[in-house]
């Protein structure tokens, strides 16, 4: 057991990445995630790693693409407007089947938006984001400890399946301080014979590429990639259930919204209301099964989000619209209170009976 230290969420991501064997970080300053870059700037030179402040988000993600092509653990981090800029590179990384970690500490949008926390990049993170058919595995941590734990997990999953993984946090998760334990990570070795490190005159040349001018070939690569995604849906889906078994109303929330929702569940239970919470930890793959199961007894669902309602579409799909699904939300950097969530629980209970 390593000892607990008090850390900001952003710093926990950075230190966990180093524990996971990441020695290459490329980024560009943007609030509210700049602590990650600052931490890396301090630490990387001390451990023989590379910190480089790129000229743009676009360059940063392409530097990531280079290191990922060589098969070394590599990451970048940004916040919403910056992650939009990275989408081109993320699509190429996905198309070339390369492992990498992209962190998005979300802020309100659209456009320049604001600098306060938000979850309004859910669509961008879970539905592809850039051009073409692809997916990212998306982790949504809900504590500083989980910021660290899922950073480590993300590197492993990225290597295991050869794909880019996103850690989708928000301004609250990035900025808040909590005690965190950072044990040494077990770093598994994966086959990297596909990487470009020079032929050493011992093999044919390797090519890192996403261009297929022959449409049959391009279709085949997409089919193969989606076979991999099907396996990930089966193997890597993570979620937490809280008091769902007898619940009449099931809240669905991730990240900071799930902590507020848990408070609301506790308060509702005190008042004798049967309320539970399903917290997706992976946003893709989305926890379809527990929602489907809950739809057998729950009378309704409430998607609690820091957005105009994005995950709610996946909740409806997962429950096959068998039960009403309501939205409880704030957006633009505002955060719903447990009281607001409790009110929407009562409203739903009065409507569904």
């Amino acid at each position: 057991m390593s000892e607990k230290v008090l850390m900001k969420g952003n710093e926990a991501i950075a230190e966990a990445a180093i524990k996971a064997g990441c020695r290459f970080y490329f980024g560009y300053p943007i609030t509210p995630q700049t602590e990650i870059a600052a931490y890396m700037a301090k630490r990387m030179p001390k451990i023989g790693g590379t910190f480089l402040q790129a000229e743009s988000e676009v360059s940063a993600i392409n530097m990531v693409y280079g290191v990922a092509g060589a098969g070394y653990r590599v990451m970048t981090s940004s916040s919403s407007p910056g992650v939009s800029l990275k989408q081109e590179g993320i699509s190429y990384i996905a198309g070339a089947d390369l492992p990498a970690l992209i962190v998005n500490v979300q802020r309100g949008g659209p456009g320049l938006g604001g600098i306060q926390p938000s979850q309004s990049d859910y669509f961008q993170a879970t539905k592809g984001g850039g051009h073409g058919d692809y997916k990212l595995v998306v982790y949504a941590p809900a504590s500083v400890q989980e910021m660290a734990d899922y950073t480590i997990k993300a590197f492993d999953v990225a290597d295991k399946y050869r794909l880019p993984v996103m850690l989708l946090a928000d301004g609250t998760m990035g900025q808040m301080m909590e005690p965190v334990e950072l044990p040494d990570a077990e770093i598994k070795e994966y086959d990297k014979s596909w990487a470009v490190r020079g032929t050493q005159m011992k093999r044919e040349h390797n090519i890192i590429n996403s261009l297929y001018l022959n449409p049959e070939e391009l279709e085949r690569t997409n089919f193969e990639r989606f076979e991999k995604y099907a396996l990930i849906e089966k193997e890597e889906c993570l979620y937490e259930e809280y008091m769902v078994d007898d619940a009449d109303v099931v809240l669905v929330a991730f990240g900071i919204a799930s902590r507020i929702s848990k408070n609301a569940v506790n308060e509702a239970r005190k008042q004798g209301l049967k309320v539970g919470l399903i917290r997706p930890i992976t946003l893709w793959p989305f926890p379809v099964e527990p929602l489907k199961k809950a739809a057998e007894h729950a009378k309704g669902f409430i998607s609690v989000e820091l957005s105009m309602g994005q995950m709610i579409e996946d909740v409806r799909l997962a429950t096959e619209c068998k039960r009403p699904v309501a939205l409880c939300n704030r957006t633009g950097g505002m955060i719903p209170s447990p009281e607001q969530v409790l009110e929407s629980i009562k409203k739903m209970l009065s409507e569904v009976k």
Partner: protein
Amino acid sequence: MKVFSKPQSLTDAPLHYCPGCTHGIIHRLVAEAIDELGIQGKTIGVAPVGCSVMAYNYFAVDMVEAAHGRAPAVATGLKRCMPENIIFTYQGDGDLASIGMAETVHAATRNENITIIFVNNAIYGMTGGQMAPTSLPGQVTQTSPYGRDVKTAGYPIKVSEMLSQLDAPQYIERVAVNNVKNVKNAKKAILKAFKNQVEGKGFSLIEVVSTCPTNWGLTPEKALQWVDEKMIPYYPLGVYKDKDAEGKGE
């Protein structure tokens, strides 16, 4: 006795370039340089988006295909994680001087220890002949059908001159491949650009004035003449920066 052969650093794949295009010559010069320095096994090339997008099939070294303009950033990532390897990019004018200008300038000003082969033929070839950042004033292209009007489309960018104003870069030279003498000079420059990297000296960029007979609407022979008559007067050949010559080599 063997007097001539294909460089080892080229694959056997037939080139897809148009008749009279000088990409073939430039590919060969790059491959010869790699062979002569004995670095084939540790070289990694970065291909651009443009006519040379499929350069990854032609060089017998590990290759990465970059997004349009991003090759210097990709090369930076590769070099930073493998400082002992040799990293080069091969880019056209649209790729390097338009969409990838930020990546180019910043790789240069960091003096990234990489080699850039910049092929300037004053046009977007692959997409069918549109105006490039290096298209000459008055040059007719698909997107400047009345000739490049500098009042609305601006002036061509002289990349070698511009980059040589930076303090950091090690070596910047403009060459051409339109006649034997120029090809020989180009070979020397490209070799030096790779040697600089082997010796850890830093950023070297060779701008190669090239042709596009297809989209210029000229025969291969006339295209070579057009290089002499139009391109070289606007883009004078020569060394624009050489820290060794300045006695400031790092």
